[in-house]
């Protein structure tokens, strides 16, 4: 129905290869001992999608529990303790097992070396190790459910987590500790890869913007995660031995825990959103058939977001008992975030201006991202402003805000990126018509679920509430109906993506007319990525006629 695909001439000299990374050495042993970044990327993809599904099902269950104030589903009543475990698991699984590892572990692992024209990441064995560390962390997280789950909220605030909760806090925090190491090693690998494995001729400002975004992410992973790691070790020891560092009963300071926690977890928000922005920076020029506007501005804004992310953690604690001076300073610094975020959005919009926009499914997700991120970002202003934050913090307004950023923005970008690189990863095209329907449903469902939560929050509905006042019931009901649309669109996406795998490889090398190096190899790529070492001779995203380098010679 669309002139979508094949709008640019196809590179003809890599017909679907007989041997590629998927069908060479296919024994189970070959897979579990692989050091190929593409295979590790795929394994990460399966892992993180699995936890996306688990976290998503928990979310659907949560919304179902909140549908009516009676909390009865088909005759089964979920009690307050069950509800508290549900939202904690939902949060912890989504943050630590899905969003943080998803884009870096799966998509980036797969495409970053390809984009740089490299044969692999800098440390392939370390890459595999970091995957297995992720698996160990995931097993620990799942086993914590068996040992009584956890009911502290994903933020593990002391002293509730250290002395009041009787759930398996130590197991879960140690799981997050382990997952943190996986994240650090992934970041470390990308930093070294970006520094040293760029193709001949590729300077820093010739890298695709995706790489810039992931480089910034990797820097945060390396610098912020160790602080979380040590904090969680301290928490686990506090829980077990009462060492008196966070627990006031033994002389500790609960606010110190929050400082430590947010010193990591605020940058972690950028570990989540920067990869999303990185993907959007690829999708928009590719589908607008136009060079990215303000390449350097976007690259610098990624780096500056990474830096600013380290000095704004206190905005999570305006009413939490930090000093008043700190609160004022953190509020002022928080507004700095608006500038690089705005720069990115305006540059993306200008890129679309006078473009030749192909509304393929990845681009639909990119457009959804722009709108959802706008809402997520703008509602952040309410929370960064001191006097309104007093009223809004710890309410559903915050819940809605961070879902717009983490889910509405990052996950939308992730799904968009998954569609964009799916032909490259699997060698198959998916059903484009279904993909477009799913994208539209996702957008509608998302807004239906989370817009009402802004209203509930500003009207005074606190978060993490099992019981609520009757006046909020219509909003909760609306939100629950929205969640069904989201669920439906995601299962639909899963179905047609899996269905595409049943076909033989049919994807061309460059189905979208992309200009970055990953499109110059076959789909799926051969084991060593490129037949010949690619050399970069032009800036990325050059769509001038005769400049695309895509003509067959």
């Amino acid at each position, binding site marked *: 129905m*669309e*002139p979508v695909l094949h*709008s640019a001439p196809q590179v003809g000299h890599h017909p679907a290869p007989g041997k590629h990374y998927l069908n060479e050495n296919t024994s189970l042993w070959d897979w579990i001992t692989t050091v190929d970044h593409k295979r590790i990327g795929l394994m990460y993809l399966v892992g993180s999608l699995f936890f996306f599904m688990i976290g998503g099902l928990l979310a659907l269950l949560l919304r179902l529990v909140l549908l009516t104030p009676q909390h009865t589903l088909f005759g089964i009543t979920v009690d*307050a303790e069950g509800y*508290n475990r549900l939202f904690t698991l939902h949060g912890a699984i989504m943050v630590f097992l899905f969003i943080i590892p998803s884009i870096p572990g799966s998509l980036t692992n797969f495409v970053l070396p390809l984009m740089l024209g490299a044969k692999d990441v800098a440390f392939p064995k370390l890459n595999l190790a970091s995957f297995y560390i992720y698996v160990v962390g995931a097993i620990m997280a799942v086993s914590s459910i068996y040992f009584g789950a956890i*009911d502290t*909220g994903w933020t593990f*605030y002391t002293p*509730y987590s250290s002395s009041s*909760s009787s759930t398996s806090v130590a197991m879960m925090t140690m799981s997050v500790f382990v997952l943190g190491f996986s994240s650090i090693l992934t970041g470390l690998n990308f930093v070294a890869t970006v520094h040293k494995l760029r193709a001949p001729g590729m300077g820093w400002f010739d890298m695709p913007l995706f790489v810039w975004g992931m480089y910034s992410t990797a820097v945060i992973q390396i610098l912020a995660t160790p602080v979380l790691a040590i904090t969680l070790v301290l928490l686990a020891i506090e829980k077990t031995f009462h060492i008196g560092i966070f627990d006031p009963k033994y002389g500790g300071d*609960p*606010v110190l825990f929050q400082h430590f926690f947010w010193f990591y977890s605020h940058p972690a928000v950028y570990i989540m959103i920067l990869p999303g922005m990185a993907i959007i920076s690829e999708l928009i020029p590719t589908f*607008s058939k*136009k060079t990215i*506007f*303000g390449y*350097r*501005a976007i690259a610098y804004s990624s780096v500056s977001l990474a830096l600013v992310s380290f000095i704004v953690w206190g905005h999570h604690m305006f*009413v939490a*008992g930090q000093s*008043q001076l700190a609160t*004022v300073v953190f509020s002022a610094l928080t*507004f700095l975030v608006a*500038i690089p975020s705005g*720069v990115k*959005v*305006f*540059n993306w*919009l*200008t890129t679309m*201006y*006078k*473009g*030749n926009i192909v*509304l393929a499914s990845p681009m639909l997700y990119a457009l959804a991202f*722009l*709108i959802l991120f*706008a809402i997520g970002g*703008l*509602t952040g*202003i*309410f929370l*960064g*402003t*001191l*006097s*309104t934050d*007093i*009223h809004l913090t*710890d*309410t559903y307004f915050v819940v809605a805000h961070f879902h717009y950023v983490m889910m509405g923005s990052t996950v939308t970008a992730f799904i968009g990126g998954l569609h964009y690189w799916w032909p490259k990863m699997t060698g198959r095209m998916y059903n484009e018509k279904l993909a477009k329907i799913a994208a539209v449903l996702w957008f509608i469902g998302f807004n239906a679920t989370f817009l009402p939560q802004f*209203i509930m929050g500003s*009207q*005074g509905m*606190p*978060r993490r509430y*099992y*019981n609520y006042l009757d006046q909020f019931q219509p909003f909760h009901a609306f939100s629950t109906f929205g969640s069904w649309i989201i669920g439906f669109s995601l299962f639909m996406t899963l179905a047609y993506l899996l269905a595409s795998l049943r076909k033989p490889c049919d994807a061309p090398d460059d189905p979208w007319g992309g200009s970055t190096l990953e499109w110059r190899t076959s789909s799926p790529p051969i084991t060593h990525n490129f037949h010949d070492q690619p050399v970069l001779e032009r800036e990325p995203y*050059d769509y001038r*006629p005769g400049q695309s380098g895509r003509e067959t010679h």
Partner: protein
Amino acid sequence: MEHSFIDYITGQAMLPPRGSEFAGEVDLVFIGIYWLSIILFLAITIPTVYFAWRYKFKAGRVTPHQTHNTTLEIMWSVGPLIICVGLFFWGLDGWMKYAVAPGDSMEVVVTGKQWLWQFEYPDGSRTVNDLHVPINKPVKLTMTSEDVLHDLFVPDMRVKVDVIPGRYSMIWFTPNVLGPHTFTCAEYCGKDHSGMKGTLTVESDADFAKFMATGGTEWEEYRDRNDWAGWGKLQYERKGCNSCHSVDGTSSKGPTWKGLFSKNESFTDGSTGIADAKYLEQSMLQPNAKVVKGFEPIMPTFQGLLRNHEIKGLQAYIESLK
């Protein structure tokens, strides 16, 4: 309350009723940002949709090679920066008021614990989950927690602050609207986090004085109707008894009240006894003197928390639960 569609457009419907002047100031900032956000949202969304439609793919269209424009970059960096500086100071203005209580405030000492709020008035009398204050006088709540983090949130006053064990935190407000306002706990504190709420009653000076003397005008109504059990039922909900004692026979943290009256109980110290009115009173004031077998000695004392007529009401209420 009902909101018209217009209220949603203007942002008014986003906010709960206002209970103080401060609430009005916060709302002004909220509505200001709300409108700013709407304008910026349209500034992003309209081009997004328009470009996607206007520049929809057409075979053979050549796109211009626009790499950057420094003037534009500066404009859309500096523009937001100026807006942000303005917003920061606008928000700071409200914060300064929130952070410092007037010297002549009436001080109420608040203790949060799982899962109830206890208020101690200047005269030493105490209430649970039920805060009464006189209208148009600044009230300062000095708060601490006995166990984990809590957060006292009064939506109608637009104030909240974390309540932290081992520390004191403070909020204040000058209520200017009579009547009940709800307050809740806004920092997750465990199982009954969502049940940790109560009513802030703003009343006239005369009513407040009467409340301090007797426990309020409500009491007189019950007394006049001679409805002791009804009065007890109100205390059951208001004093937080319901967080541990059921009235339908199910066992919770404490024994159920259903069929409790005149029951022969055995205690953890090995003795037995009849649960009569005297025993019930003892259980409220010295709860750990006789603990029913199978339960933990975890009930806090209600000495000083219950007025005599409230104890009498509770006894009557328990007696009524056959």
